[in-house]
């Protein structure tokens, strides 16, 4: 049972990203295909197998996770920031929507976009490397948790930010580097010791590793570590975003 107010916000947020399908859907498809051609084939030709799976399959969970979290983050961040710029955030602030409803509207729409993009990427990747999934429900649950965490992060960043540059700060300086160093393209067994140590404190590593266990049934770390980390990240980010909305920080002077 959701209220008409929340339903309206959710619908609006979903329509917003569906109206620009080139940006929201086509671009991740092209990016994934490029990753496959460059990493999957050129590198994969030499690497052949990582932990007993073909390299082209090995990189799929990481790429999908990256697509999901980036798009979940971007959806809340750009939507909230644009509403602040346009002044249309006023429409929500004068409405009787509760803090929880506003949060849910933004986060659920962003998770849907993340899953849509992740699903499309997984479909494209499947063409190159096959469609079987080891633990489908676990894989889906972990991806959803990751999307929830990053969409809440995107929302908080946009509430705080006063320029587009600040909105992009987080993806540029955290998400992308942590992802590239987080075992998307390699097994940590392949790294020299100092980098391996760094990987062990990188949350994205556990996230990708957990999703890889869900999808391929192989992992570097105990899969429970990834799952636990994602539960903590998602609930922490949601609690922080709720507290931020409730406090009126930046939005209500």
């Amino acid at each position, binding site marked *: 049972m959701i*209220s*008409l*107010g929340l*339903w*309206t*916000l959710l*619908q*609006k947020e979903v*329509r*917003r990203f569906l*109206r620009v399908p080139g940006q929201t859907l086509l671009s991740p498809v092209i990016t994934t295909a490029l990753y496959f051609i460059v990493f999957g084939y050129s590198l994969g030709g030499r690497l052949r197998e990582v932990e007993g799976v073909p390299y082209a399959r090995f990189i799929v969970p990481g790429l999908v996770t990256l697509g999901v979290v980036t798009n979940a983050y971007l959806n809340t961040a750009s939507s909230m920031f644009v*509403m602040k710029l*346009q*002044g*249309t955030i*006023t*429409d*929500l*602030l*004068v*409405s*009787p*929507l*509760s803090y929880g409803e506003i949060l849910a509207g933004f986060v659920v729409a962003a998770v849907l976009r993340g899953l849509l993009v992740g699903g499309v990427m997984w479909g494209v990747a499947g063409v190159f490397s096959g469609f079987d999934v080891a633990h489908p429900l676990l894989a889906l649950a972990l991806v959803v948790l990751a999307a929830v965490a990053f969409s809440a992060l995107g929302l908080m960043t946009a509430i705080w930010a006063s320029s587009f540059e600040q909105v992009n700060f987080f993806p540029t300086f955290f998400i992308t580097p942590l992802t590239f160093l987080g075992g998307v393209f390699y097994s940590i067994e392949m790294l020299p010791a100092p980098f391996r140590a760094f990987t062990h404190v990188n949350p994205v590593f556990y996230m990708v590793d957990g999703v890889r266990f869900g999808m391929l049934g192989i992992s570097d770390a105990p899969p429970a570590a990834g799952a636990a980390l994602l539960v903590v990240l998602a609930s922490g980010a949601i609690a922080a975003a709720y507290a931020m909305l409730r406090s*009126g920080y930046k939005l*209500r*002077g």
Partner: protein
Amino acid sequence: MDTVVAIRGVTKRYGPLVAVDGIDLGIRRGEIFGLLGPNGAGKTTLISMIAGLLRPTSGEISVLGHDVVREYRETRRAIGLVPQEINFDPFFNVEETLRMQAGYFGVRLAEERLVEILGALDLLSKRTTNSRALSGGMKRRLLIGKALVHDPAVLFLDEPTAGVDVELRRSLWSYVRRLRERGTTIVLTTHYLEEAEELADRIGVIDRGRLLVVEDKDALLSRHGAKVLRLSLARPIASLPAPLVAVGARLDAGGSVVTFEASTGDAFGPLLAAVADAGLAVGDVETRRTTLEDVFVRLVSRDRGEATA
């Protein structure tokens, strides 16, 4: 009388700046209340706190008996706000914009209500036009439509006719009167005095965050009101003869105009006699009643004078 909005000791600070300074005010059911003040007086800040866009630093506001912070869901259902700054979402057309805003308030906009709002705001032909493609005046009317979708008990209009042409201004005024006739309480902020004089039943004058006066418009005009006599002299004079100074006349326009203000009940006879005695050649005579503008300028300059003294 029935108070719809009760404001008690409300202050809003921005660092050292006190934008709203301990305001007490009650808005009565069914009235048009004009909140009048120069730019930066604190009008937008005050109504933003009532509508829930800003939190007061201190003090309390209730709408229909509900606290605007603790019981915001109840108070916001009762309030419609037309913000000062135009905003629009270029993703949506006029109908979608109105339906969405109604949805946020938990209201499914019935077709006849939609048509009624569009008709009243002269936007029927723009129903499926993207909001980006509307003219400035149309965007402002769409903002009014958005504030009305949930049929609020109190409508706040923040400088609704700023930058709007004369014709649209007249039609907005008549629409505001129609809303009031149907029972909507209206709070209007403006720095445009003719607007308050035309529309308001009661007027509050605000300057530098403080409410200087709250009074029925007619009472305000007659208490502070006066009539003004302007005599344009055929030949300018260097200084006003003593008998004219004694009755309270003033020399303006570089010595070519004598201005005299009297309360509504007084006569101009003695002044005219004094002018004749002084032998001044009068070229033209003009009389008018004081307007809200005169009252306003007097109140604000008195307030500022006291503060700097």
